[in-house]
Structures are given as C-alpha cells and as structure tokens.
C-alpha cells in the first residue's frame, strides 16, 4: 500500500504555484484531543451522524459555496433517492450517484437493523464543509451542531468529512 497523500504539502505547493496566499491550516497537534470514553457498547448506543459533503434533501434550500456556515437537518428515515449533493471543491459524480459515499445513511440503517448499532438519532446534520474560515466553523457552526447532538441525547457521533 503506498503512502497516504500529504494534502497539506500538496495544497501549499499548489497555492504557491497559483500565487494564492498560504492557507492557515488548523493545527491542534500540541493540544490533548477532547476525550470521552464510550459509555456503553455500540450495540446499545444512539448514534448521531454529521457530514460535511454538502448533502441536502430535495425541497430544502441548498448550500451556497462561499463560507456557508448553515446546516440542514436530514431525517434519518429519509428516502435515499431524495438526497442531493452540492459542493464547490470535490468531484460530486459519485456522491450524486450514491450519497452513501459521503453520507452513509443506508449503511447505518442496515447496521441498526442488524443490531450492530443500537439506534440512530432521528435527525442527521449536514453542511457544505468548504468553509475557509476555521474561526467561523469553531465559533458559529460547531457549537450549534454540538448543542443539537446533545439535545438529541446521542451517545456517540460519527463525523464524515470530505
């Protein structure tokens, strides 16, 4: 297996070549990560899902592409055929063919049906993760998502970035 792509290096070089300003990457390597042990086995957990691939339900207002810090509430019993994907920075072909590649809703429903996961929260949260301002994510988006997940009384949350 070849080494994983070094995206930060590659993007830094790309930006320099294009004459863009360097991007200020989040770097929390020197801080201990927040930690909460799982309180019960996954088979008894209520799981939350948060995904940044720009998923919305047909009928909802779609995301815009300039630092959109809003999110959508997607019922976890949504028919998969009603899911859409919008994002300016990744190839949407496969996500539009099968949203499960960035929003694993059918997969999670199957895991619940099989008993590997206790249950899903009634609502999943989605946003368009191409937000250049890490500050706005930390101050505007993340706290609101956290509030919603806590109010939904999830035991664990699966984050699916793109």
């Amino acid at each position, binding site marked *: 297996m*070849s080494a*994983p*792509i070094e*995206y930060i290096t*590659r*993007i830094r070089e*790309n930006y320099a*070549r*294009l004459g*863009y300003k360097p991007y200020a990457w*989040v770097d*929390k390597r020197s*801080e*201990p*990560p*927040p930690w*909460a*042990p*799982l309180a019960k086995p*996954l088979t008894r957990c209520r799981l939350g899902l948060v995904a940044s*691939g720009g998923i*919305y339900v*047909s*009928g*909802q*207002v*779609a995301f*815009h*592409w*300039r630092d959109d810090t*809003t999110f959508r509430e997607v019922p976890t019993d949504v028919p998969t055929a009603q899911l*859409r*994907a*919008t994002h*300016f*920075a*990744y*190839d*949407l072909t*496969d*996500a539009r*063919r*099968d949203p*499960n*590649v*960035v*929003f*694993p809703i*059918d*997969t*999670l429903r*199957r*895991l619940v049906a099989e008993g*590997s996961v206790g249950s899903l929260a009634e609502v999943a949260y989605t946003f368009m993760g*191409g937000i250049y301002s890490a500050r706005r994510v930390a101050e505007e988006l993340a706290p609101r998502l956290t509030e919603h997940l806590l109010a939904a009384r999830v035991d*664990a949350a*699966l984050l*699916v*970035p*793109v």
Partner: protein
Amino acid sequence: MSSALDITRHVNPPRAAFLDYPLGHTTGKPNEPALQHEILCEALAAFEALREPGSVKLLPYRWSEDDDWKRSALMGGDDRQPRYDTPQYQNEEDRSRAERCEICFT
C-alpha cells in the same frame, strides 16, 4: 472518518478511522453496499477499540491496485468551482421545490 490522514492528524480529533480513498469517497465506493458495510463496521469498531486519545485506525482498503489516483489528485492547478453565494442546487427541480418551500425546514 478521514480521507486525509495528515489533515486529520493536525485537527487531532479524539479518535478517527482513515480510509485511503480519493476525496469524495469518505465512506466507500458508490453502489457497493457490501464494501460500504464492511468499511463502516471496521470504522465504528474504533469507538470501542481505541482507548488512547488522538488514535487513528488505518483501514486496510485500497481504491485500486496501482494507486495511480494519488499521482494526479490536486495536481492539475485549481479545479474548484467558483464560490457562488447563492444556493447551488443539484437540479432545477430542487430549486423550484425549495422556492415553493415544499418542506421548508432547514
């Protein structure tokens, strides 16, 4: 989940599972539900298995035998779309449904 190991290590989340696939395929390949199921089972097992804060579980899947996709990813200059500040619908029907406010929750 992560598709970018270096970015995830910088963000330093409590725990993560890394799948070495091209961006836009964080949880698998399209229309391969058996593979998606296997990947997510392995990833979710990290919730119970990882005890050290900041650990990343490396999932044992390859996108292709030759890993050719890694050579070209993000190497063609800036291939992003312009950052429009109006809603960008997947199709016109979605636009008209949203403008008629058929579900009207956000």
